[in-house]
């Protein structure tokens, strides 16, 4: 066994280690159960590899793949298991599927070998196959009296992968979860076109588990567990500070808002198509970029070239990052995580999302509200001034989420009645939390220099 002494084996996946308060307890048996495609093997191999990279020893007992195929698959995910084997840090046991009476010799040699090799981590893939060969009663005794005792005596951590058939809820023989020290159930479900994966930490002896269920995705680095944003009133949040305003790029609108947009606030620009939501958003982005703030403009409806053309047409000078995203099927937490990463990469102080309506097309109303809420919690926690455009009149079912916005600016228009008359655009501040706002309706026009409010 390696000399890296500690009572916890981290997964090496930051988000998962946070969820597990550091990692898996040493000297314990952890059951990882789930349907095919949930990423059980992928997760276990990454935990193993991450730990071998820091000098721990690992072993993999496989009834599923032969050594060549296993090493090849691992290599596709950037893990060189042959190199680890050459360094003496890895042993692969490619087991055969045999009847119980013939399995005995294999188990005997396996145990002898593991005891001599003394790995820090051993993975059994899968315990379900062992159970099918040995039978439920012998499997219980094998896990409880052999694996658990060895694991404890050698102070290693064993991961038992358990295959749960589609449509089944019961894990294996219905007793594995009782004999294991930790149980993680991996599940997935289809939400429209999006696949949502859940991880349930049912128990983890010796670790403090704050939440039981986490959504996750399968990545090249293993899995990523989505940790929900928490609104903390720390130094980064604007809510603990004196009022600081950021301009909208329009003096009159700043005046109407009582000084501008409060730093760290969330503003919803609501209005029907053609009412000027994008023009106003670009004006906010441009002005703030000119004043040296880092602006991230995420557009779901137009290409970056279209946005650049509009900027040019409106003579907007500020230079800011525009990212065009195609609204795809995704879960709320995936959307939140994608936006969180983009904001972090750009170190953005101002975030503009144009528009939420496009994002909503692939989600159930309640899922969409959750996505917006997560984004709001994240940006508020980080003191990022956020502007989101939306067409509330088309989506009356979603009026609930506007409650979460600090400011609501409503843009509208009146269609001309007589030939030769022009379209009349109006703007009104429906809500401006914490500031005295002008609540009168104003007319505005879109000129080559942006919005002019009368």
């Amino acid at each position, binding site marked *: 066994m390696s000399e890296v002494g500690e009572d916890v084996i981290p997964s090496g996946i930051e988000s998962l280690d946070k969820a597990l308060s550091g990692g898996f307890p040493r000297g314990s048996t952890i059951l990882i159960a789930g349907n095919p495609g949930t990423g059980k093997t992928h997760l276990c191999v990454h935990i193993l590899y991450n730990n071998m990279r820091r000098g721990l020893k690992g072993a993999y007992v496989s009834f599923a793949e032969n*050594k060549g195929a296993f090493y090849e698959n691992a290599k596709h995910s950037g893990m060189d298991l042959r190199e680890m084997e050459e360094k003496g840090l890895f042993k692969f046991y*490619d087991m055969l599927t045999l*009847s119980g009476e*013939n399995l005995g010799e294999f188990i005997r040699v396996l145990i002898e*070998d593991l005891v001599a090799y003394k790995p820090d981590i051993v993975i059994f893939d899968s315990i379900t196959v062992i159970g099918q060969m040995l039978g439920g009663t012998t499997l219980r005794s094998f896990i409880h009296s052999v694996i658990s005792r060895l694991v404890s005596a050698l102070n290693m951590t064993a991961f038992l992968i358990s295959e749960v058939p589609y449509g089944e809820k019961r894990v294996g023989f219905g007793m594995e979860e009782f004999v294991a020290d930790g149980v993680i159930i991996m599940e997935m479900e289809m939400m429209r076109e999006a696949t949502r994966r859940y991880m349930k930490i049912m128990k983890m002896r010796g670790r403090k588990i704050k939440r039981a269920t986490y959504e996750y995705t399968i990545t090249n680095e293993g899995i990523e567990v989505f940790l929900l944003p928490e609104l903390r009133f720390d130094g980064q949040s604007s809510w603990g500070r004196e009022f600081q305003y950021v301009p909208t790029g329009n003096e009159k609108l700043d005046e109407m808002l009582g000084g501008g947009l409060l730093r760290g606030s969330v503003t919803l620009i609501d209005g029907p198509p053609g009412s000027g939501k994008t023009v106003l958003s670009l004006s906010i982005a441009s002005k703030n970029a000119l004043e040296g703030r880092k602006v991230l403009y995420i557009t779901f409806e137009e290409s970056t070239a279209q946005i650049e053309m509009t900027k040019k047409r409106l003579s907007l000078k500020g230079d800011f990052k525009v990212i065009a995203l195609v609204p795809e099927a995704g879960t709320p937490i995936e959307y939140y995580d994608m936006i969180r990463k983009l904001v972090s990469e750009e170190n953005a102080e101002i975030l503009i999302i144009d528009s939420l309506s496009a994002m909503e097309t692939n989600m159930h109303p309640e899922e969409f509200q959750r996505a917006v809420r997560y984004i709001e919690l994240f940006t508020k926690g980080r003191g990022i001034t956020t502007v989101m455009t939306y067409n509330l009149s088309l989506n009356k079912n979603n009026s609930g989420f506007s409650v979460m916005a600090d400011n609501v600016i409503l843009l509208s228009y009146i269609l001309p009645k007589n030939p030769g008359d022009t379209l009349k655009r109006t703007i009104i501040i429906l809500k401006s939390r914490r500031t005295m706002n002008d609540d009168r309706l104003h007319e505005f026009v879109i000129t080559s220099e942006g919005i002019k409010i009368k």
Partner: protein
Amino acid sequence: MEKDILVKTTNEVLQRLGPYFKEAVEAYLRTKYDAGVELIGDDPEEFYSALESLFGEFTANVFFSRLLSELGISVHYPLTGTSIVESIKSYVNTEDKTD
């Protein structure tokens, strides 16, 4: 003499390892090396590699550990292909020295 014991024991251990193991090994050796189970005495390395190709490294190790035990040779864990083959070679070489 040792070679004969080795081949006989190999046949027995293959039989006990599981159903149709012996038949599969014999067919493979015939096709690949134009040889029978006696290959273990002539070239233990090739025999190990035949078992490894057929059933994987671990099964080859399980077979050889059983074989070594049956022959009264001590087995050292953790098992490696090299150490196993060397033990068989030493066993066969004993015969050469006694000749």
